[in-house]
């Protein structure tokens, strides 16, 4: 065990954790928004909209995240039209490519979580709202959405942890996140175990925090 190396690499890894957290929070926010939109589209009665939303979630859940990042980072630059458009400012940055890939990926999983939460709401709640004379809009926003949020908290907590682990793939497109820096230190010092312990503990600590935050929210919003 090389304790000096562990101590020396800790600040570097902690610094890289910031990038990991930035990637995670931004993609979760965008992904949550996408997830909501696609969950509502999934429940639409129009078969085309429905199929479109299903196709989106099937595509992103059926393929590895690595492929998605590579398509966006290496693949999209090949399209002339995109290269000359204003979007190129965003798409040439690995940082934004990673965020786009992560957001689309977590959006697909989130849409499934929200959809199943919306579908499992007891019809009694909706009927109660109707018999009170509430409009459909109010029933949706004031009854269905709050119940669905509470229902989907445990599954969404898992999704956040999966996404935290997913951000490690940013290192494959040259970003120096926690895993990227860990790999760099490993390949320069050839001390994989020590670095793994330090980087792994940081990840475990983050997982622990997320787990407890979700537990707290579950308790707060239980009924």
């Amino acid at each position, binding site marked *: 065990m090389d304790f000096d190396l562990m101590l020396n690499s800790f600040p570097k890894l902690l610094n890289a954790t910031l990038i990991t957290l930035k990637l995670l929070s931004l993609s979760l926010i965008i992904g949550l928004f996408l997830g909501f939109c696609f969950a509502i589209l999934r429940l639409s009665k129009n078969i085309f909209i429905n199929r479109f939303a299903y196709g989106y979630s*099937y*595509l992103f859940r*059926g*393929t*590895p*995240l*690595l*492929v*998605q990042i*590579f*398509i966006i980072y*290496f*693949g*999209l630059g*090949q*399209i002339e039209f995109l290269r000359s458009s204003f979007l190129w400012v965003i798409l040439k940055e690995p940082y934004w490519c990673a965020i786009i890939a992560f957001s689309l990926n977590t959006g697909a999983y989130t849409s499934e979580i929200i959809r199943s939460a919306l579908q499992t709401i007891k019809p009694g709640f909706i009927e109660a709202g109707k018999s009170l004379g509430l409009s459909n809009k109010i029933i949706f926003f004031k009854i269905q959405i709050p119940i669905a949020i509470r229902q989907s908290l445990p599954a969404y907590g898992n999704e956040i*942890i999966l996404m*935290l*682990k*997913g*951000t*490690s*793939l940013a*290192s*494959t497109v040259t970003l120096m996140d926690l*895993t990227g820096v*860990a*790999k760099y230190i*490993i*390949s320069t010092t*050839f001390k*994989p*175990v020590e670095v*793994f312990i330090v*980087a*792994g503990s940081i*990840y*475990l600590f983050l*997982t*622990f925090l997320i787990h407890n935050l979700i537990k707290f929210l579950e308790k707060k919003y239980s009924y």
Partner: protein
Amino acid sequence: MSLLSFGNSGWGDELFFATLMTLAVSLTAMIIGFIFALIFTPLKLSKIRFLNIIANSYTTVIRGVPELLVIYLFFFGGSGAVMFVASIFGYNEYIEINAFITGSFAIGIISGAYSTEVFRGAIQSIDKGQFEASQVLGLKKPIHFLKVILPQMLRLAIPNLSNVWQITLKDTSLISVTGLVEIMRQSYIAAGSTRDPLFFYSFAALLYLLLTFLSMKLVNKLEIKYNRGF
């Protein structure tokens, strides 16, 4: 389409063998995962606290740390660990482990952590009466496990195991960082030499979709088979 032709002019045959490689790694990893799960599930359910702690730390650490980090640990640390063990037995030459073994082991340990949780859940949801009944009948322990618990456990575990399989299948794409030529690595090579990454990565995505689709069909058949009589 000429990019996908078989033979020397296209990448069709290379990608075909790469797909077989992905399947081979996933299957090996899944089997290694089962072995790990068979070791750790009893530890998890054991009444001895110390064994519980061992099994729990295995599943928590593996499920809380990114797969890529675990793969790097095995990739950079694997041959060192093997050489260390070999040096105890007096063998001091350099040993290189091939990428297939490192990769399947890394993914196998990850998939084992998920399988352990699935098996634990399945055993715990078997009716208590089943355990008591086989005790009353005086069945021996191995027979009790093989004939009473295992068939019921499998039925309950199949839907979740199919999720583990999908996760494992997708995780194998990460082994490409170690240089093992599976779908991702082959697409990377093809994309590099033809300068057509969009086409090859999209094709890789299609291959993964095909694999997940086919395995889902297979799992549905298995589910029907094991749900007979329920």
